[in-house]
């Protein structure tokens, strides 16, 4: 058991991550580019227009993945926080730190595209209903995590404090998810349910699925790159970073 743990810790070491991610990164970049291009071209140019919304519905290909990613990035951030708190892994803290601004931007993107979409479809930029409000709360939570970190000087303590805040804020996620079911909202309910087939034809949802995959992969790429930068900054006095900088 102890052996397993020490292995786990070794693999979670910044140095190991830096090396592995260095190898993976080009592949991720390539994949992201490929998938996103496919998705964008298919979704924006080739997918059929909606019978009611016409071409306006194409914002879906930006809005929906951004929204999904916003939520999952919060969950990933909280997960990283929990891992960091329990097993005291440095890498987890870096993951938390770098996820926050990414998540905040995705949330902002979701809200912005939603608002742009809402104007022609609903007839308003903004309504104060459960889905939209809980999403705004998510943005505040991300901002809170960022603000807390920037206010604390001690890096280690800041990491743990942010982890706790992220975990506390986790209660918001089911609210976002279920808001369209529990309360009456203007926002539509899910088009995709686990038990039924999607409420749209394949030529509409396949590009959407591709876009979701593309967003995930873009998120992973950006996350990895930011973690790498952080690692270099934080470990800048260790031998291996010095060696690397010298050879570079």
């Amino acid at each position, binding site marked *: 058991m102890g052996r397993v743990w020490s292995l786990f810790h070794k693999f979670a070491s910044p140095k190991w991550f830096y090396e592995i991610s260095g190898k993976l990164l080009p592949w991720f970049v390539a994949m992201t580019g490929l998938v996103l291009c496919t998705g964008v071209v298919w979704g924006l140019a080739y997918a059929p227009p*909606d019978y*009611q919304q016409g071409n306006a519905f194409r914002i879906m290909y930006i809005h929906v993945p951004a929204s999904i990613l916003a939520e999952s990035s919060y969950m990933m951030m909280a997960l990283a926080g929990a891992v960091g708190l329990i097993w005291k892994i440095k890498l987890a803290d870096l993951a938390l730190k770098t996820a926050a601004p990414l998540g905040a931007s995705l949330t902002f993107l979701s809200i912005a595209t939603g608002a742009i979409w809402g104007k022609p479809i*609903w*007839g308003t930029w903004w309504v104060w209903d459960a889905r939209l409000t809980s999403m705004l709360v998510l943005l505040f939570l991300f901002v809170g995590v960022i603000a807390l970190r920037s206010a604390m000087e001690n890096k280690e303590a800041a990491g743990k404090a942010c982890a706790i805040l992220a975990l506390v804020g986790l209660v918001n996620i089911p609210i976002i998810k279920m808001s369209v079911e529990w309360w*009456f909202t*203007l926002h*539509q309910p899910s088009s995709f349910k686990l038990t039924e087939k999607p409420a749209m034809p394949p030529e509409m949802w396949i590009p959407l699925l591709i876009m979701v995959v593309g967003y995930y992969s873009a998120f992973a790429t950006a996350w990895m790159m930011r973690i790498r930068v952080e690692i270099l900054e934080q470990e800048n006095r260790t031998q291996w970073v010095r060696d690397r900088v010298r050879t570079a």
Partner: protein
Amino acid sequence: MKFGNMKPHRRRRLYVVLFLVVTSSAAVGLTLMALNENINLFYSPQQIASGEAPVGKTIRAGGVVVPGSLRRDESSLLIEFDISDLKTAPLRVAYTGILPDLFREGQGIVALGKVNQQGIFVAEEVLAKHDENYMPPEVAAAIAAAHGESE
């Protein structure tokens, strides 16, 4: 209470754990009870018809615009139409203003407004509700056609 010859700080910790168990089970119980109650500011035409909704208070109402019920006033922007939940008698809605593009007969809407003494819903805002179904126009036409045939 004494828990054998437990060390004092272990006993203290036990109290904390007991407290946590009690509070979390109480939370679960209350949540289960709460789920049976409805907390919404939204009323269906049926609820409004049966007088459940308060008169003269701003509430949300929603339903499908009954086809053929739309009437426009010649001289002003006043619009009247019926909405229904396809179960009970429709609810009359009066609205002055510009409707969203997606407003069509047979389409879902959400309106914010007040029920007046006559039982008419005076809306100050009408928003088009959009459901989760997307399809290309040809498919929609085909479905509509099929619908028309079968009727």
